[in-house]
């Protein structure tokens, strides 16, 4: 028994020392802990949209994810519980459809979408997360995610870029240091962007590339391919409005 306790003490000390050394190494290079978005984090908020009767749910893509400030919403609309379901780079119709199909949802929806968001290929962009919430999310996953939030908020090494595998791949393929993020999510998925920290030159190049690709305009969508989704979305909005009225 003494041998087991001695081994356990040595293991804890050696492991803690090694992990602290790795953590300090990355912090010394300017990295800070971040919450990593994932289907289970989204599903926690999706569950709150149903369970909170006073939920005000934000749907959209990156504009919504990073431009809505939770503290401002809470101070201006204290009777509502803000819930963020927007997703970076993905249009929100699949989530709107899911909320309309949820007989227990009684909240308010603020949905940000542009014309391209109604194109047929955009319809199911958020469906993987919706499917995850419907078929795989469980109380045990919720508990796991809540604990993971604390770990990700406290430790740089919780980010997969600093895993042993990714470090080995970077070393093998002679990649540079991991990406320094300039956008963050909090544990409720409300995002923030520090435009000063972004790589402005590469962003300019990316924008120029996109504009060149589309000839200065977004691709034109034929009316017949666009209108059915508008009609469907209108139906989902009516369903949600009717549910709130009952």
């Amino acid at each position: 028994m003494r041998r087991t306790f001695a081994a356990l003490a040595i293991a804890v000390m050696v492991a803690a020392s090694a992990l602290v050394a790795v953590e300090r190494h990355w912090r010394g290079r300017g990295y800070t802990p971040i919450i990593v978005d994932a289907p289970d984090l989204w599903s926690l908020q999706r569950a709150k949209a149903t369970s909170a009767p006073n939920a005000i749910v934000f749907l959209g893509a990156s504009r919504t994810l990073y431009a809505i400030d939770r503290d401002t919403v809470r101070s201006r609309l204290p009777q509502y519980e803000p819930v963020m379901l927007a997703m970076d780079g993905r249009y929100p119709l699949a989530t709107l459809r899911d909320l309309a199909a949820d007989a227990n949802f009684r909240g308010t929806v603020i949905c940000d979408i542009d014309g391209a968001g109604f194109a047929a290929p955009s319809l199911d962009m958020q469906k993987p997360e919706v499917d995850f919430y419907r078929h795989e999310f469980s109380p045990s996953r919720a508990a796991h995610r809540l604990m993971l939030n604390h770990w990700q908020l406290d430790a740089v090494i919780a980010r997969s870029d600093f895993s042993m595998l990714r470090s080995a791949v970077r070393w093998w393929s002679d990649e540079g240091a991991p990406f320094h993020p300039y956008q963050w999510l909090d544990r409720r998925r409300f995002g923030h962007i520090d435009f000063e920290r972004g790589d402005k030159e590469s962003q300019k190049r990316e924008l120029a590339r996109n504009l060149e690709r589309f000839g200065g305009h977004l691709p034109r969508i034929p009316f017949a391919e666009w209108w059915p989704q508008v009609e469907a979305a209108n139906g989902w909005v009516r369903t949600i409005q009717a549910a709130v009225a009952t």
Partner: protein
Amino acid sequence: MLGFWLPDNFRSPYAATGFSDFWRRWHISLSTWLRDYLYLPLGGNRGGGLFTMRNLMLTMLLGGLWHGAAWTFVAWGAFHGLMLVLERVAEPAIAATSRVLGGVGTLLGGLLTLLGVLIAWVWFRAPDFAHAAQIHHAMLVPTDTSANLSAEAKIALIVFSLMWLMHWLWRHHDLRRWLRRRGAVALGFIWASLIVSIVLSPGVSRAFIYFQF
């Protein structure tokens, strides 16, 4: 630990030299449960050849379904059941070949079992048969890009090869007994390396595979 006895659950499974050997080494608590509560109550091997084969197939099909309600798990169980049946049918031929080939035959048996087990894992992991077919195609059919493996693929190959070698070298050894003979310092460092490996392997979401239960 705290008065509980935790039995061995895995015993160098990738060093198995046949599918019956694999199931004596892989997820031993499950295979023991399947044997005691399905295979033996069904009649085990008491009713002759065909009856035994039926019981093996039924046990493995239900073992597949135990992992999840999907046809891919049924296919995984069916493949293992079929391999167990074939092994039983070919038992005299396998024994005769082993006598002739000796150690080379054992190694060959091990490699063939490993190949079969890896092919079957695809059904276990893939969300549907279409994805499984794509993965099988990529695994088994050489293409122009096969030689240009990514860094991730090369590292996975090296790690898996080392793991297989360790399994093979340890196939007749008892890890528990070996660890019992180590001193506190060596044991502490082994445990520390495991803790560090676990903590430094975060993914986007590393949820426990059995959360669905």
